[in-house]
């Protein structure tokens, strides 16, 4: 049965070894599901969030995985709209990662809200001014798009392909891909942006607040661009990791180099904008009665974090990725991509966690927060879920079409 499911022309590790590989992930998922059960049945008192740190690890996780999952829309956009055919080698993997990131984020959101049974109120009584309403709408729609995009990947499985009606269904769906890519890009554009706007509109949090360009704060655009920049890097990284773990060459080296180049060129653009934005922010935050230096003079969060984010994890990988010589060297390429991803992970951390830790009122104190085991377990469950979905997809579906080609050589 197992053998018959594995794509023709590819070889996979023996089933027992695969079982051994997924076992820890299943255990992790199990613990996480128990933590989720606790949170749903007893309430969010199971977490270490509180009225001051009302957003915690989970929102940070959502923002981060959705940024990293941006590879799905951006690769689709490049492939189907801009016709960058070489990206066909990773599109299936990108879609799978996108699906994992978005479904994981939505699942965590459902635990993060206090009354999940009332979540549909957002659709029935939406507040159009709310960034969160925009996020909810776009993420829900985009998740549906991703499901539709993911279905053909599943349907191409060797066994399922044998069912004629499924093959027809797959074929029909495939014709939709251009449309789906366009819709996905449109939706992603808005929700990546709204996730940035989520904090950027908070006038009560001058550390995160940004003035509006049009109707959206500048973080709206910065988030879109940074997600687009880091999406390809993340795909590069996951492809390389999968290849290392499975000990197989999955794509031609040029594909990874292309991904790196795309990532680098957008990243340099992002870093310039981010720098401009930071300079504007420093000059505008006085008007809100706060001193920009004050934010960095408190406790652990010094200006080093700004330097780390913009220079070490922004400018440096951007320059590296733009260099041909660096891209030729797989180790350096992967390292640069990792730095770029880390930069976005840090940016989302600064936006969500540092913003809340800083005082606003004159008698406020700097706050610290560390997640409870239930929060961490839920977080890890999403990672375990992702690993499982990806592992099964890699084993039984064609995530990397070039693999057969390379192996037959």
């Amino acid at each position, binding site marked *: 049965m197992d053998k018959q499911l594995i794509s023709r022309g590819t070889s996979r590790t023996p089933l027992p070894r695969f079982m051994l590989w997924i076992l820890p992930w299943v255990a992790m998922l199990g613990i996480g599901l128990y933590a989720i059960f606790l949170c749903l049945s007893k309430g969010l008192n199971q977490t270490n969030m509180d009225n*001051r740190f009302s957003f915690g690890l989970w929102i940070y996780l959502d923002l981060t995985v959705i940024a990293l999952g941006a590879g799905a829309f951006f690769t689709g956009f490049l492939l189907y709209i801009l016709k960058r055919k070489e990206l066909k080698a990773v599109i299936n993997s990108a879609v799978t990662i996108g699906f994992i990131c978005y479904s994981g984020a939505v699942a965590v959101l459902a635990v993060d809200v206090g009354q999940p049974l009332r979540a549909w109120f957002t659709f029935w009584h939406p507040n159009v001014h709310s960034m969160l309403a925009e996020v909810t709408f776009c993420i829900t729609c985009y998740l549906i798009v991703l499901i539709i995009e993911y279905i053909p990947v599943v349907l191409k499985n060797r066994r399922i392909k044998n069912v004629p009606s499924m093959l027809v269904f797959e074929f029909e769906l495939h014709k939709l891909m251009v449309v789906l890519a366009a819709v996905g890009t449109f939706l992603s554009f808005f929700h990546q942006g709204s996730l940035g706007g989520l904090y950027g509109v908070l*006038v009560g949090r001058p550390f995160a607040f940004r003035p509006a360009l049009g109707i959206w704060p500048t973080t709206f655009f910065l988030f879109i661009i940074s997600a687009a920049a880091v999406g390809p890097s993340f795909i590069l990284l996951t492809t390389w990791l999968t290849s290392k773990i499975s000990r197989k060459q999955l794509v031609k080296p040029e594909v990874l180099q292309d991904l790196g180049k795309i990532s680098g060129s957008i990243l340099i653009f992002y870093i310039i904008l981010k720098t401009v934005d930071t300079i504007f922010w420093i000059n505008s935050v006085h008007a809100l009665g706060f001193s920009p230096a004050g934010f960095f003079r408190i406790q652990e969060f010094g200006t080093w974090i700004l330097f780390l984010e913009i220079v070490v994890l922004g400018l440096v990988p951007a320059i590296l990725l733009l260099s041909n010589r660096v891209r030729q060297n797989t180790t350096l390429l992967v390292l640069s991509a990792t730095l770029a991803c880390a930069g976005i992970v840090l940016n989302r951390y600064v936006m969500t966690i540092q913003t809340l830790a800083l005082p606003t009122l004159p*008698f406020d104190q700097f706050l610290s927060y560390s997640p409870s085991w239930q929060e961490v377990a839920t977080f890890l469950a999403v990672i375990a879920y992702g690993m499982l979905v990806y592992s099964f997809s890699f084993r039984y579906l064609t995530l990397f079409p070039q693999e057969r080609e390379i192996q037959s050589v």
Partner: protein
Amino acid sequence: METNHTSPRYGMVIDVDRCTGCGNCMVACAVENNVPPADPKATERTGTTWMRVSKLENGLPFPENRSVYLPVSCQQCDHHTPCVSVCPQNAVEYDTESGIVAQIPVRCFGCRYCVTACPYHARYYNWWDPVWPEGMEKTLNPDVSTRMRGVVEKCNFCHGRLQAARAKAAAEGRRTIADAEYVPACGESCPTHAIHFGNLSDPNSDVSMLSKDKRAFRLLEELGTEPKVYFLSEQDWVHAIVKNKISTELKGHGNG
């Protein structure tokens, strides 16, 4: 039209020089609004106090150290209200008939975005289901609904009292109510009469005049949220510290 007059905009003026920090306003508020006693595991950061008295210190060492108490409830921002625009499902609303920022817990699904948005930390999430010792639920105020875990709540200027005052006026055939007919529980309970309450739209009201006093200030005024809660103090250091917000950084790490 039901109303043919300017709608009132209710506001509060708190004289911090008179406040002794006794906490009456906090408990009277909890009684009035059916806020339950703390869960055994609740802390200063997970407890629910629609009105919270905070201590503002002058930063000097003993014995020059002086402090005032600032009772901080929802500041009922009049403009750019940070919480109203962020709620994804309209559970927060600026009430045009009273100027009160309404929080409707039964609409709320507990995303806590508004809690994050509020710079005054005036919003409280229900981390636990409310529990009263056996029998004490008989002391709940029938003019205010009880809430369940997983939703956000906050001060609404004892809106139940406004509704009761309106009903009484309606029974007498009146469409308007006088300032004296409607006083929130915190104002009523203040033993030093530090809390003044009334209609800011009426230029002759007590609160209108006090809000224009040179002793008056508001919290985080530069954010432009136009809070309808004013504070009064004659002490210069209070004004200085309130203006220079970030100066408390030296207080260091807090878990409270």
